[in-house]
């Protein structure tokens, strides 16, 4: 690396219009994958344990215990490797239609997945190649991805772009003849900009194009289209309240897809440094989605559940009683405690209460006759820097 000649430019009235380009997260000051200038960042091993349970009135439904590991290994100033591993152990039952668990089907019981990413850092840019694998007894997924990050000269703006290809294989514990595939291409572009000393914003657009099998083999009647195109727009803003130790992080995501689902997600998180070693992060998440075009309400024909009216006489091309495709809203409240034990070790605890209700849908009516869903997540984590 050689030095450069620098000019002291006269700047009448402050910044020139060209300086409206902005800068990302103190790129030179903070190492990490987002900081193309610096490099791979400090070595890190992070472990988290998640305990998730959800229930609907009258019965517990699903309980998940899940350890996860993440490692960042800086090979040199120009190369970094990140790797992660997750295992889920799931117990419980999944409804066969709407909220009924009559003759409940077994959930996939054990899932594990890993991912790895290699990044090359060159001056103002970083290029990554990644691969991810996920296996369950009835589902396999393989994905590869490429990503680039570019910083502006004054480090006030950062561009990123990524593309990924995923291939999924769907089988069924109940049906040994089922062997279907699904292929998805995802494209992602974004820009991050420091607006001022206390504000940084990010815009990111994702487009996904999938072809293949989308139906749920465990639902009694579930026939979904063989393609799904999805678009998501993400806006994020971090604001530091100068003179205090409080940061407000706001994020909004708008989503739509060719299943007919439209959704909005709004998250507020407020990171408060109580002491030098202890921080509290309360958060609120608001979510609302419309129903898929082929979702049908629990209004059954004379044949009884789960057959919708007209099912025999004029069967629709696609339909699904999956509650996750219905119209509903969800609210969660969360709080996270972060303990900086010393310069190397950090521990954290995060608790979230989540509830889904059809009456909470915004911008239209919620789907009728579905029981609310409540869930609790507890996440404990420990991490060490190197």
């Amino acid at each position, binding site marked *: 690396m050689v030095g450069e000649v620098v000019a002291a430019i006269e700047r009448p009235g402050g910044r020139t219009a060209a300086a409206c380009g902005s800068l990302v*997260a103190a790129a*030179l*000051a903070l190492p990490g994958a987002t900081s193309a200038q610096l490099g791979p960042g400090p070595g890190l091993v992070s472990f988290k344990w998640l305990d998730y349970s959800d229930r609907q009135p009258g019965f517990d439904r699903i309980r998940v215990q899940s350890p996860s590991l993440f490692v960042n290994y800086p090979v040199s100033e120009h190369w970094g490797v990140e790797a992660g591993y997750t295992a889920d152990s799931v117990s419980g039952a999944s409804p066969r239609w709407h909220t009924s668990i009559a003759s409940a089907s077994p959930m996939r019981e054990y899932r594990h997945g890993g991912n790895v990413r290699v990044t090359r850092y060159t001056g103002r840019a970083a290029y990554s190649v990644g691969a991810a694998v996920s296996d369950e007894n009835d589902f396999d997924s393989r994905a590869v991805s490429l990503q680039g990050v570019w910083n502006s000269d004054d480090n006030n703006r950062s561009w990123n772009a990524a593309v*990924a290809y995923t291939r999924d294989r769907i089988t069924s514990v109940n049906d040994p003849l089922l062997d279907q595939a699904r292929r998805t291409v995802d494209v992602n572009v974004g820009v991050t900009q420091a*607006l001022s000393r206390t504000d940084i914003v990010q815009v990111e657009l994702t487009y996904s194009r999938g072809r293949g099998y989308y139906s749920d083999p465990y639902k009694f009647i579930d026939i979904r289209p063989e393609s799904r195109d999805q678009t*998501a727009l993400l806006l994020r803003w971090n604001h530091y309240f100068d003179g205090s130790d409080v940061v407000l*992080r706001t994020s909004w995501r708008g989503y739509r897809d060719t299943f007919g689902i439209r959704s909005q997600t709004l998250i507020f998180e407020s990171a408060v440094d109580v002491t030098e070693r202890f921080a509290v992060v309360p958060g609120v998440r608001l979510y609302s989605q419309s129903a898929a075009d082929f979702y049908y309400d629990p209004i059954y024909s004379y044949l009884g559940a789960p057959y919708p009216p007209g099912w025999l006489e004029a069967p629709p091309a696609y339909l699904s009683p999956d509650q996750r495709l219905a119209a509903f809203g969800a609210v969660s409240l969360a709080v996270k405690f972060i303990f900086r034990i010393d310069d190397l070790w950090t521990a954290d605890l995060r608790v979230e209460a989540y509830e889904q209700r059809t009456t909470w849908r915004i911008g239209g009516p919620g789907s009728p006759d579905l029981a609310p869903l409540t869930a609790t997540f507890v996440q404990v984590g420990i991490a060490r820097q190197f």
Partner: protein
Amino acid sequence: MRRAAAITLIALLLGGCAIEPPRAWERDLLARPAMTMDPDPLERRIMYNIYTSRENSFGGNGVGGGGCGCN
């Protein structure tokens, strides 16, 4: 709602021209972990998996993370 998002986006970008982008020595606050976009990437991935298994929206979490089989 889409239109609102577009207007917000444009306002942000135009507004950026009126707000002073920080000089190199003014990035002290931006350097704090709480001000980064992803202070805890492992947690973000975990929560994304949870939400996508109980809701039906995707995206906003990078790409190529592998599927969870939540058909």
